[in-house]
C-alpha cells in the first residue's frame, strides 16, 4: 500500500508505529470536503486487529470491556472501551460480534499490544487471543456517495448502522461494516492484508477520493469524536470524556467498573466543545481561561474546521469552574487570547445513520 500512496504524492508521517499517509497532493481541506460532499477513501490498515475465540469468547470479552455485547446480535459491531481498574482508558475499540464464541476487535494501532496483553492475561482456559494485525487491512469509505462506490464493486450497502456482512468483490473476501469516524454515511472494509491494494485501486477507479489522516482528524474533530491519546487516555476516564454511552452500567463486571461508578456522578472535569468567536486556530494542550484569566481547563484537540471555516477545539474543563454551554472562555494561543464559546459537540450535523 505504501507504494500506492507514494504514487499519489502522499506526505507521510509516523503514527502509532506506522508510516501513514497524512495527506495527498489534493490537501487536507479538499480531502475533508470530498468526504462531506462526495466520497473519500482512507487506508487505515494501521488499526489493530485482535481475534478472541473459543467457547464463551463473547462472554469473556463482555466481562473485560465496558460496553454490553448483550445489546447486539452476531453480525453487528459495537464501540467499546478497555479501561484499567482505576478507570483510565487503555483504548477505545470496535468489537465485531461474529458469534458467541468469536469476537473480532479493532483497537488503535499504538494500543493493540497492550489491549491484547491484558486480554491474554485474563483469558480463561480454552479462549485464545490472537494478534492478527498484518492479516487484515482496513479501508474506510466515507461520504454521501459511499454506497454508490460500494455498489460499483458489487458489495452490500443496505446495512443497518454498525451492522456488517462478509461479502466478496471478484474472488476477494471483504468484511463490510456500516461504520466510520467522520460523521458521514460510510463503511469500513476489511479485506486480507495482501488484497488491500486491489480493493483500494477499485475504489479509486469508482471515484473515491484518497484521503489521509489529516482529513480524518479534522472530520472526527468536527464530530467531537474522541481520539485516544487526546480525549481518552490512561489519565482521562470515559466519564470525563463523555463516553459513558459506551459503558454497560448494568453489567456486573468489566474492567474499571468500581472506579467509573464512583466517578460517574461528579467527575472532576468534563469534555466540552469550544468554537472560536474570532480568527485563530486552537491546538492541543492550550490553556482554557475564565473571564478572570484563571486556568480552568486544557484543550485535548484543536483545529481549523474546514466546514465551519472557524477554529474548533475539544477541551477538558474543570467541573468546579461551573462553566455552562453558551459561556465564553478564552484560549491561550501562544500568548495571544482567542475567545471561544463553550458548545456541545458535534460542531457539524452528523449523517451517520
Amino acid at each position, binding site marked *: 500500500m505504501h507504494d500506492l500512496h507514494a504514487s499519489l504524492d502522499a506526505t507521510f508521517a509516523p503514527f502509532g508505529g506506522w508510516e501513514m499517509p497524512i495527506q495527498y497532493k489534493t490537501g487536507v481541506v479538499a480531502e475533508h470536503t470530498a468526504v462531506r460532499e462526495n466520497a473519500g477513501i482512507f487506508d487505515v490498515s494501521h488499526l489493530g486487529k485482535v481475534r478472541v475465540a473459543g467457547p464463551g469468547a463473547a462472554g469473556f470479552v463482555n466481562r473485560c470491556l465496558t460496553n454490553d455485547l448483550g445489546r447486539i446480535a452476531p453480525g453487528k459491531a459495537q464501540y467499546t472501551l478497555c479501561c484499567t481498574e482505576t478507570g483510565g482508558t487503555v483504548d477505545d475499540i470496535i468489537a465485531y460480534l461474529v458469534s458467541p464464541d468469536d469476537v473480532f476487535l479493532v483497537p488503535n494501532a499504538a494500543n493493540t499490544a497492550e489491549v491484547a496483553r491484558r486480554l491474554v492475561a485474563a483469558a480463561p482456559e480454552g479462549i485464545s487471543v490472537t494478534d492478527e494485525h498484518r492479516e487484515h487491512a482496513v479501508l474506510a469509505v466515507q461520504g454521501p456517495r459511499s454506497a454508490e462506490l460500494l455498489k460499483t464493486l458489487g458489495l452490500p450497502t443496505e446495512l443497518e448502522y454498525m451492522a456488517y456482512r462478509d461479502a466478496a468483490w471478484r474472488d476477494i473476501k471483504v468484511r463490510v461494516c456500516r461504520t466510520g469516524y467522520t460523521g458521514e454515511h460510510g463503511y469500513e472494509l476489511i479485506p486480507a492484508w495482501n488484497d488491500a491494494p486491489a480493493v483500494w485501486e477499485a475504489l479509486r477507479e469508482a471515484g473515491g477520493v484518497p484521503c489521509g489522516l489529516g482529513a480524518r482528524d479534522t472530520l472526527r474533530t468536527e464530530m467531537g469524536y474522541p481520539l485516544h491519546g487526546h480525549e481518552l487516555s490512561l489519565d482521562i476516564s470515559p466519564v470525563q470524556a463523555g463516553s459513558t454511552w459506551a459503558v454497560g452500567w448494568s453489567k456486573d463486571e468489566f474492567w474499571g467498573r468500581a472506579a467509573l461508578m464512583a466517578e460517574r456522578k461528579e467527575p472532576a472535569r468534563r469534555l466540552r466543545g469550544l468554537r472560536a468567536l474570532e*480568527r485563530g486556530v486552537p491546538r492541543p494542550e492550550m490553556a482554557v481561561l475564565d473571564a478572570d484569566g484563571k486556568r480552568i481547563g486544557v484543550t485535548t484537540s484543536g483545529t*481549523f474546521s474546514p466546514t465551519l471555516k472557524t477554529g474548533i477545539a475539544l477541551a477538558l474543563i474543570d467541573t468546579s469552574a461551573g462553566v455552562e454551554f453558551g459561556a465564553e472562555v478564552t484560549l491561550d494561543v501562544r500568548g495571544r487570547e482567542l475567545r471561544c464559546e463553550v458548545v456541545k459537540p458535534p460542531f457539524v450535523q452528523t449523517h451517520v445513520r
Partner: protein
Amino acid sequence: MTPEQLKYTPDHEWIAVNGDTVRVGITDFAQDQLGDVVFVQVPEVGAAVGAKDAVGEVESTKSVSEIYAPVGGEVTAVNEALNDSPELINSDPFGDGWMFELKITNPAELGELLDAEGYRALTGQA
C-alpha cells in the same frame, strides 16, 4: 518557481524591493510545504520591527510557522485580504498572497538577502 527579480531569506520569504520600501511574502516552496493555509497573522501598520524579528504567523492545517521581518523598518501596509482569504498564500504566493510592506531603516541589510539562485540552491531546486 523562484522569480529572478525577487530577494529571498533562508526562512522562505521573498522580498520585492521598490525604492525604500519592500513587500514581503512566503515562497511557493514554503506554501507547498505548509499545505492549506487557514490563518495568517500579519504585523500592525506602524509597528517598528528589527531584521529577523518574529512579526506574525502563518498557520496551515498541519502546522504553525512564524513570519520574520527580513530587514528592519516600519510596517507601512498589510494585506487585509488574508483575513478572509488566507488561501491566497497557496494560490498566489508571489502575488495576491503578499503579507506586508516595510519602509527600510538600513538599506545595507538588503545586501544580506539571497538572490533567486541562492534560494534555489538552498531549497535543492534545479
